[in-house]
């Protein structure tokens, strides 16, 4: 059994609003192991985005524990959370992923700069990763000079370059056509397996689940079902 990278214990998130309290995440508990790629799915309003924001240390839970590498994100102060995010978490977003004024290589190196790891070896690693992702000839291009799929691959490289413990992807295929979406998720899954990182992808596109090891289904803030068997995951991805 692989080592556990991420554990959530009875995580609750309640938003205060003028119309009363809103329970966005209700007693959610799960684990993600190193080298495991998990999909978090559910309809709009199911709480998956809130869950992702908490896992990314962008939001504090109202109750419960979020342990990444044994450290509880819920008890960290703001400065510690920022540092933790920088060192331990990799992130790709739906859009606006890359800084438009940095080239593909510079966008990736930025993550190393932030972690004081931009040395010769780091630069080489960044170039190798981009080459691996088929972007060798796009290294010195600005995001505006790349296609959506290429930009998404650069974002994947940025999320992984500093060897984070947890890699999060928020709807990474939202702006891609089907073929490029499959390619991007497959690349993501391969890298997570290869590098033994824990990966969580939030998606509403169930077809993308064909590359994941487990699917966590949320509804009304609760974790309602976990798909673990490859057969049922494939069936879910096929829409059966």
């Amino acid at each position, binding site marked *: 059994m692989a080592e556990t990278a991420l554990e959530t214990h009875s995580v609750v998130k309640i938003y205060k609003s003028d119309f009363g309290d809103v329970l966005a995440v209700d007693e959610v508990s799960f684990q993600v192991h190193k080298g495991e790629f998990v999909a978090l799915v559910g309809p709009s309003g199911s709480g998956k985005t809130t869950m992702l924001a908490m896992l990314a240390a962008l939001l504090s839970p109202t109750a419960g524990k979020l342990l990444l590498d044994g450290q509880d994100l819920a008890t960290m102060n703001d400065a510690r959370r920022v540092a*933790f995010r920088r060192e331990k978490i990799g992130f790709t977003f739906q859009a606006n992923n890359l*800084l438009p004024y940095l080239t593909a290589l510079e966008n990736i190196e930025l993550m190393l700069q932030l972690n004081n790891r931009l040395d010769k070896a780091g630069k080489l690693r960044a170039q190798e990763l981009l080459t691996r992702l088929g972007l060798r000839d796009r290294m010195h291009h600005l995001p505006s000079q790349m296609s959506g799929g290429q930009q998404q691959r650069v974002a994947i490289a940025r999320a992984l370059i500093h060897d984070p413990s947890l890699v999060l992807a928020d709807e990474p295929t939202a702006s891609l056509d089907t073929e490029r979406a499959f390619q991007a998720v497959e690349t993501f899954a391969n890298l997570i397996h290869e590098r033994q990182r824990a990966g969580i992808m939030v998606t509403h596109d169930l077809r993308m689940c064909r590359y994941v090891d487990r699917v966590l289904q949320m509804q009304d803030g609760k974790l309602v079902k976990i798909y673990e068997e490859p057969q049922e995951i494939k069936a879910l991805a096929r829409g059966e």
Partner: protein
Amino acid sequence: MQMFTLPVYLALREFWRNRGRFFLVSLVIALITLLVLFIAALGEGLGNGNREYLSKLDADLIVYQDKADLLINASRINRDRVAAVRRVDGVAKAGSIAVANATITQLDSGKELKVALLGVDPGEPGEPLVVDGSQLSRPNVNEVIIDRNTFLRTGLKVGDDLIIRVTQGTKDQLYSLKVVGVSDGQQYSLQPAIFTPYFNWDQVRPKSEAEVNRTETVVNVIAVKLTHPAKLETMKARLESEVGNIQAVPIPQAIEAVPGYTAQQSTINTQGVFTLLIGLLVIGGFFQIQILQKVPQIGVLKAIGTPNPVVSAAVVTQIILVTTIGVFIGAAGTLLLSLFFPPTIPIVFNGRASLLAIVALLMIGPIGGLVSVRYAARIEPLKALGLST
């Protein structure tokens, strides 16, 4: 270390990759700089035109007729009082200053030039030092020193004869004066000035019909140099009590009393301050709009773990960079433009005033951008990335 270099790296990269846009903002700042520096120079030029002669006097006190309200033209002191002033213990030197207007005519250019015609005592305070030629030789010679402005605008030089036209009684009279020296700028009442010995001045000055045959000699004010300039207040009181019917004031007070000087300076200074304020709003507005456009980018930066101080420092670095480039272009442009201005335009670049304006301009960027820096620091990555519920 990266936390110090990273903001500069981000700021420079963004600046370079969007250099067209940033350069346009720098140009706006350059135009504001040009405006502020010209207003400062105009203020200095106008102020200088009003006070230049008085401020360059080698004297400590100006003696006016009592109750003349410190107005040089209104002050009338009998010339024998000059000797009385010289006799006062503690007075090193005293010289007459008599003012009038004349028109230099018959110039090679065919033009005429209105000038201030000042009567002074050779070798005494009031006579400007020449930078070319020689000082006035004797109290009653037909000699004249022209100031730099007269020199530039007439083309007259040492050794030339200068023809002035004045009205005496009901007739226009022409007088020829020999140019013996050229002084630095010595404008009086915003006019170029020429200086002739007092007794000669009294012959060639404009006169009313009543004055034409009058023998009484009158000066406007007396410039006094003290043996011990530190004893200004004591000497002022001593002069007033020993000479009688006079009022002595230090040079700065005499300058402030020049008609319109204070009002003119405060008007120009107000214009300068308002231009700076407008600059502040323009710069502040630009950076605020820019930050609003960059909210998602800043959200990404923060989400991937960029600390707030790095984000803020990057914004500040960019503001300083854009402002500095703008101010530099503006200052260089001002310098270049000023070379083409004719001497008739009263523009004077005073080192201290220009430096103050440049420092103020360099500060308007960061001050104007403070709001946007604060805004950038407060951007929530969750909201910026659309992850908030």
